[in-house]
């Protein structure tokens, strides 16, 4: 059997800016309250146009689970590693809080966690996924901005979305090859 290749596909055009995902993530993953502690976030992109012809979008973002992960490369203790499914994780016990990874990350997706006494970030909720449950942010979203699944399975929702719709990835110039895909 083939390896799984996990990914998240986002249809941010649907996003209501309701922030359900960010709160769900905090409780699920013991992310403390605080403006600097978050694994995922929702940004109001700049308002376009002049009254009354306006346009606005909201963009959810997080760790991009890069196939070519800069954070992993700079980690002196190999605390950051990639699973066979392509999920970039941190071994909290190995982290020495040097923050090199935080500097290296082009997506500002890492923070220092008091709870784990480590630098941490999105894990794709692997503890849930291993039990057959969806990541907390995927599950709680009213409009299902995110879909999570296996790129190696042509019938998975993520594969079908990517084969049927154009998409872009964040900061392609960094050559990070993210596992997050934003469909248009």
């Amino acid at each position: 059997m083939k390896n799984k290749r996990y990914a998240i596909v986002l249809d941010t055009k649907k996003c209501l800016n309701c922030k359900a995902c960010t709160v769900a993530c905090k409780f699920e993953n013991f992310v403390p309250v605080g403006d600097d502690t978050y694994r995922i976030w929702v940004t109001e992109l700049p308002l376009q146009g002049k009254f009354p012809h306006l346009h606005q979008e909201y963009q959810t973002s997080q760790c991009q689970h890069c196939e070519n992960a800069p954070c992993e490369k700079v980690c002196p203790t190999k605390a950051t590693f990639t699973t066979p499914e392509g999920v970039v994780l941190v071994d909290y016990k190995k982290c020495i809080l040097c923050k090199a990874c935080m500097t290296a990350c082009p997506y500002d997706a890492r923070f220092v966690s008091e709870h784990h006494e480590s630098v941490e970030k999105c894990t794709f909720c692997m503890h849930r996924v291993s039990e057959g449950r969806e990541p907390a942010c995927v599950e709680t979203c009213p409009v299902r901005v995110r879909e999570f699944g296996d790129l190696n399975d042509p019938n998975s929702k993520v594969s079908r979305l990517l084969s049927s719709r154009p998409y872009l990835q964040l900061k392609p110039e960094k050559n990070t090859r993210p596992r997050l895909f934003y469909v248009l």
Partner: protein
Amino acid sequence: MEMSFESLKETIFAQSRTLRPGMQDKHETSAWDKNRLDVESALALKNIFFYLSLIFRYPTEQIYSEIAGHLEAFTDFFTDYGGAVPELPPIDDLQPEYISLFVNNQGFVPAAPYASCYQGDGLLMSDNFYRLRQIIMESGFMLDASVHELEDHLAVLLEFCSSLLNTLVEKNNSSDKNLMACIYALLEISYRYIEPLVDDFTDKINSYASYDFYKVTGKALKSLFHDADPIYVQLLGFRSNSTNELQG
């Protein structure tokens, strides 16, 4: 091999945040020589803990009269640690004062008397709560059914410490194997539950209190726990790496 006080503390802080597996058996009884217990001091501290426990409970008439009746006996303690002898306001003033500081104020509670609120996200029953419950139960105690409180309420913690000291004294002459467990519990409660609370807690009392009573008693509580190392070293007769403290 006898453990130093510092390494004992380290062991306690290295404990997992969650439940401890069958704690009694794991403790090395050789870590401490029970003959070194300063019984008189232990009794004194036991009483101070209990008295402070009474102070940080809601002052019902019964509690109030206990507080009032024994205040004089603790003059030295409060003078040394609180900087003054607390002036006890009339019960009709103390009750609202207690509620407005520790139970409910307009929409919030200024100085929540729960250890959990000083850890993690500031909410009740945070990570270490169940560990506390286990420590209490394994020490042979539980909350009385009539008490609608959480185990990490400061008053409960202080009473528990008082009871642990009592056990140490009472069983000192027996060959009870659990004495070391008692010491572990005492130190863990002191250092992992009460001590992290005292600074914030007293700061908040100071900004919201209308009377001096809880300011002074709060300061005494804070100073006492800041002074915990030498007190425990002396009282329990530990070997300490810090000679300065040993002579205390």
